[in-house]
């Protein structure tokens, strides 16, 4: 049998022993335990090391208790519903009338989502501005099909994609000239670079890249969120720079999210191989497919993820799996160009799963979230106020 009273006593002694000298009684109690088994001394020594505590706390933080709790709540709600249904089955034998009232009530409360709205908030569209090497700025939404760079390069614009033609190696320019594409809030655009690399650009993103790649490396600079399909060329390294990191790419597809107003930047590898170098301390990390690196000032965490969620935006979907309301709306606000306010801090941590088309009306999304009856919305222009549901 396990003696929990003893375990409790020993744990309390071990915790106390750190700070003050133990009393004689306590000491002999602890000594007796230490002598009981050679292994006890080993356990004792390892508990004394603070580094071990720090390491263990990290392991414990690795268990997602919030997610487990919401699974639990879902589970017990199902049980409760089963009980209610059972009750009404018996009741129905006696009073069918009450049963119908119950179902009518259920129906009514289902089709009456708690949203005070109709908004005219629209999803994002393909839009971007392009800054040429000489500094002139072009609105790609309105511009013609062809744009001429002054060095003669012709850029194709198809209203949602910008294409740079590959250049004959012999004609390669000596000096690298950069273009800069800027996607506003509520926008997205695609780009095909001169080496054939494809880039999907999400809302509020800036990318700086050479009109024609030349020299020993292919280097580009970004801020915001982009998905890359890099054209394979083992002899011609492709490097993405953000303010927090540098990603060396070896022919591959991956997503980088590096918004300056977010604490951490996230690199998610779908296929191939990349190595990632943190700007602050030059630490290097190698990623393999399904790895995600989250880099912040404090630390870098590498974890395995389901990549679909992180590249859903480029496949035309809005996808969240058990994300907090705050995470959901931080994302939506860039795409729908809205400002979000919460009346209540704690609702920020409510979790939601959503899977809809990215081009859905904003109201449609609010209806889906509203159906959970956890929160209510109030819309004022492009300002969304989220309240707790009673």
């Amino acid at each position, binding site marked *: 049998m396990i003696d*929990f009273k003893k375990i409790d006593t020993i744990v309390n002694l071990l915790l*106390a022993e750190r700070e003050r000298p133990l009393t004689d009684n306590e000491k002999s109690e602890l000594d007796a335990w230490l002598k009981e088994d050679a292994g006890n001394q080993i356990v004792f020594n390892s508990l004394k090391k603070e580094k071990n505590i720090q390491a263990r*706390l990290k392991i414990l933080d690795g268990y997602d208790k919030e997610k487990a709790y919401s699974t*639990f709540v879902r589970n017990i709600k199902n049980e409760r519903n089963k009980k209610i249904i059972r009750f009404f089955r018996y009741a129905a034998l006696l009073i069918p009338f009450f049963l119908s009232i119950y179902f009518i009530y259920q129906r009514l409360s289902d089709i009456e989502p708690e949203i005070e709205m109709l908004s005219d908030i629209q999803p994002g569209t393909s839009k971007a501005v392009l800054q040429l090497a000489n500094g002139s700025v072009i609105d790609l939404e309105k511009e013609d099909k062809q744009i001429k760079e002054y060095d003669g390069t012709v850029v194709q614009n198809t209203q949602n994609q910008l294409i740079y033609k590959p250049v004959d190696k012999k004609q390669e320019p000596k000096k690298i000239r950069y273009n800069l594409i800027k996607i506003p809030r509520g926008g997205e655009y695609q780009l095909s670079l001169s080496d054939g690399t494809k880039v999907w650009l999400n809302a509020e993103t800036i990318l700086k890249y050479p009109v024609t790649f030349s020299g020993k490396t292919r280097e580009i600079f970004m801020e915001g969120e982009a998905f890359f399909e890099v054209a394979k060329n083992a002899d011609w390294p492709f490097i993405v720079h953000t303010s927090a990191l540098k990603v060396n790419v070896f022919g591959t597809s991956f997503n980088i999210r590096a918004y300056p107003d977010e604490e951490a930047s996230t690199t998610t590898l779908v296929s191939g191989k990349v190595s990632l170098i943190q700007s602050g301390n030059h630490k290097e990390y190698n990623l393999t497919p399904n790895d995600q690196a989250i880099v912040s000032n404090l630390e870098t965490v590498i974890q395995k993820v389901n990549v679909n969620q992180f590249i859903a935006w480029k496949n035309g979907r809005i996808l969240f799996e058990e994300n907090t309301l705050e995470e959901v709306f931080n994302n939506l606000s860039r795409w729908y160009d809205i400002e979000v306010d919460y009346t209540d801090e704690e609702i920020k941590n409510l979790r939601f799963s959503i899977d809809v088309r990215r081009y859905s009306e904003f109201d449609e999304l609010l209806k889906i979230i509203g159906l959970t009856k956890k929160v209510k919305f109030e819309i004022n222009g492009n300002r969304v106020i989220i309240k707790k549901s009673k």
Partner: protein
Amino acid sequence: MDNLNSHIIDQINSKKTEGYKYLYDNFYASLCNFSANFFEYKEDAEDIVQDVFIRIWKSNSTFESLKALTSFLYLSVKNGSLNATRNRPKWSGNDVFDDEDFLNLKLDEKTIEQLLIEEEFYRQIYVTINKLSQERKEVILLSMGGYTNKEIADKTGVSVNTVKTLKLKAYRLLRDTLEPSALAFLLSLMN
């Protein structure tokens, strides 16, 4: 402390979700980590713990104190884990099972008692530290990692004075909420 504990026990006994939220916040990770000693994948351990919590919610039994509940949780998780590793078709919660030989084989020389002492020791610290705000938590964790105030300031990007204030505030909050022994431990870390 005792009042708070009996309040929680009431909530758990009367099947209120708040009580179960407390269990998830304060026990879930440690129980999973304890159960993980028996499995290759941590997902298996998480299933066992989830199952134990749901069984408690479904059952009609009540608990006298948080201590009694703590013992029950560790015991149920141990039994659940063992039965699962033996490929039993179904675990029945009341079958208490104690095969020390088998345990010692599985657990790399550590006895179940030693594992429980470790787990409970770390759990108390974990619970205490999780009561702190994210900022204070980071400072305390770094200070545990052996960093000086100056180094912590550099790492977190705040001033040395702020680090000192954060430690002090963390200490004040802990003093109000902690069990005496766990508090003593944390105090020793902060100096």
